[in-house]
């Protein structure tokens, strides 16, 4: 099992302000000294992961107090300079909103070269609300996504000069990436999704499939991925092709770990305070879904509201409920290992775990949790996956 530390690099000091946390939030509520300290602490956390043998994952979001990382690749360039061993996962670059695929390809190659081939790459769709900032047309976003994706891969793969490209959404005279990637021909590729269709596509392409904190999506998508992978590649999918993201808090005692879990979940609660009008721009959902929302006068969220047995969860859900839902793994090292192992067994195994910390946790709490995870959970997870028949 490979584990990847992930933090949204939030600005929690503004979470209790009486303003929306996304899109229209005033930047004036961000105190420069506090924000600077938080960003520096994040680098220290990544250096700690490097020393502890954990990998690092970064994402990006825009115009929100819940994520100060506004460029996945920029952050990974910084982290590349502060680390030596850790693999660096961009998960991902939201190319539905990043409107210039050429610049994305250049930044990817730059980070891979700078890090001496430690980059792994997810070119993801991104969150729908960010289309309001990028102004990229949400109705054509699906088509544009795959066009941009394939163009970036082509640009990174081609080493003998430029590509000339005149497509539906993009036009380039000389699409030429210098320096190229360190890894040949390109870094390992990932995809995130909650849809089984995309899981199938990830399998066809042999990409790592990451499911983000929705257990039922993992239960639905992993079997489809395995089936499609076997069909297309003629061999079973290696374990390291499947990934799950969860919120993880570890402490010496259960009570402290649960409190830390509660602090991480504040991130989820704050994220969900987005103004409903920005959740579902036109064209992002099928007509049938939008027709249903029109009739009920509501909008949408993919968050699970019930426990697996159908019992409604508290509002907001408690750490204990999110543990039952496999959204949060929290407890002593033994408890966290057992929670992960139970979920791992229930879905037939996975080889990558994205370990999200943050929320209102302090830097010291994050570092303590990471140390315990790396020294007392990670070795047992590695042993667990080594015994799996599809271990790489």
């Amino acid at each position, binding site marked *: 099992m490979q584990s990847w530390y992930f933090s949204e690099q939030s600005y929690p000091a503004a979470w209790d302000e009486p303003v929306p946390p996304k899109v229209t939030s005033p930047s004036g509520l961000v105190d420069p000294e506090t924000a600077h300290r938080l960003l520096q602490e994040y680098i220290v956390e990544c250096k700690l992961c490097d020393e502890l043998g954990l990998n690092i994952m970064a994402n990006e979001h825009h115009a929100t107090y819940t994520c100060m990382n506004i460029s996945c690749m920029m952050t990974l360039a910084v982290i590349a300079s502060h680390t030596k061993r850790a693999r660096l996962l961009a998960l991902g670059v939201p190319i539905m909103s990043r409107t210039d695929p050429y610049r994305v390809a250049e930044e990817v190659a730059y980070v891979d070269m700078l890090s001496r081939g430690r980059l792994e790459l997810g070119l993801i769709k991104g969150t729908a609300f960010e289309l*309001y900032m990028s*102004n*990229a*047309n*949400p*109705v*054509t976003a699906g088509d544009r996504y795959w066009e941009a994706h394939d163009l970036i891969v082509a640009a990174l793969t081609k080493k003998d000069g430029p590509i000339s490209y005149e497509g539906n959404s993009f036009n380039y005279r000389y699409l030429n990436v210098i320096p190229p990637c360190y890894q040949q021909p390109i870094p390992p590729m990932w995809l995130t999704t909650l849809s089984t269709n995309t899981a199938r596509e990830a399998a066809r392409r042999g990409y790592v499939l990451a499911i983000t904190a929705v257990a039922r999506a993992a239960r639905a998508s992993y079997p489809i991925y395995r089936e499609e992978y076997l069909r297309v590649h003629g061999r079973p999918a290696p374990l390291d092709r499947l990934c799950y993201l969860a919120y993880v808090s570890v402490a010496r005692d259960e009570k402290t770990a649960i409190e830390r879990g509660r602090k991480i979940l504040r991130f989820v609660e704050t994220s969900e305070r987005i103004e*409903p*009008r*920005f959740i*579902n*721009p*036109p*064209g992002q959902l099928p*007509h*049938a879904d*939008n*027709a*249903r*929302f*029109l*009739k*009920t*006068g509501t*909008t949408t969220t993919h968050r699970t509201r019930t426990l697996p047995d159908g019992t409604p969860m508290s509002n907001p859900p408690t750490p204990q409920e999110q543990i039952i839902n496999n959204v949060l793994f929290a407890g002593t090292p033994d408890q966290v290992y057992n929670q992960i192992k139970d979920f791992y067994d229930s879905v037939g195994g996975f080889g990558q775990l994205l370990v999200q910390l943050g929320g209102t946790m302090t830097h010291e709490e994050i570092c303590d949790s990471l140390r315990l995870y790396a020294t007392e959970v990670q070795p047992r997870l590695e042993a667990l996956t080594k015994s799996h028949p599809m271990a790489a």
Partner: protein
Amino acid sequence: MHTQAAPGQTRQVSVTGTNIEVWEGGAGRPLLLLHPGDGFDAQAPYVAALASRYRVIAPSCPGFGRSELPKYMRSVDDLSYFYLDLIDALKLDQMIVVGISFGGWLAAEIAVKNTARIAALCLVDTLGAKFSDPMTRDITDLLSWPQHEQAQWIYHDEKLRKPTYAHLSDETALMFARNHESFGLFGWAPTLHSRHMQHRLHRIDVPTQLIWGAQDRVVTVEYGRKWQQAIAGAQMVVIDNAGHYPQIEHPDQFVAALERFVNNLAAR
């Protein structure tokens, strides 16, 4: 207010390989009616009033109603060329073109290209042009609001601002949802206008009437005055106690204003 649905018929018309739905009712002078961003509603009382005076031809724009949407159509500019072909195919001559909101934008895009078959143009609370500086938004961004909340911006009458859609049949709700998506496709960026429009409006060389809701909160009367200044000889009628859809809030005044304009054409 009239309540009787307009007598008319819907048929499919194929133009340059694209099938679209066209509603037609009434007799007399042809009037091409271009619907707003939520689609064409044959039940609206103003449609019946128009059809009692004119031969109303109301296509559902590609992507709206039961009209196909070819992949290549991504802008109102694209739509306008399709409509020029449609007008030729239907052999419409000496017609009045009435465009409402999004339909006004489309009507203007058509008229700046070719007015050979157009006798006169009527733009109702139209979208489509940018006049102010880059930091000043001319048009309220309807697309920052979900479909079920758009009425709050569209209507002046408080009673109309919070409609319920629960009673819609699944088929109608599906069509509304598709209309909204197509409105987003054509109106997303630049927000509900074409960059070139301001610099092409001088090409409109037919009598033009602007009709505006005095309390329009999507495009203000002041914005309408800029359209009036940009189109040679354009006249403007402002209907009081009406928002973005004066044809819905005051159909009698709306139709009367249009009729006065058409009746005066002969004297011009």
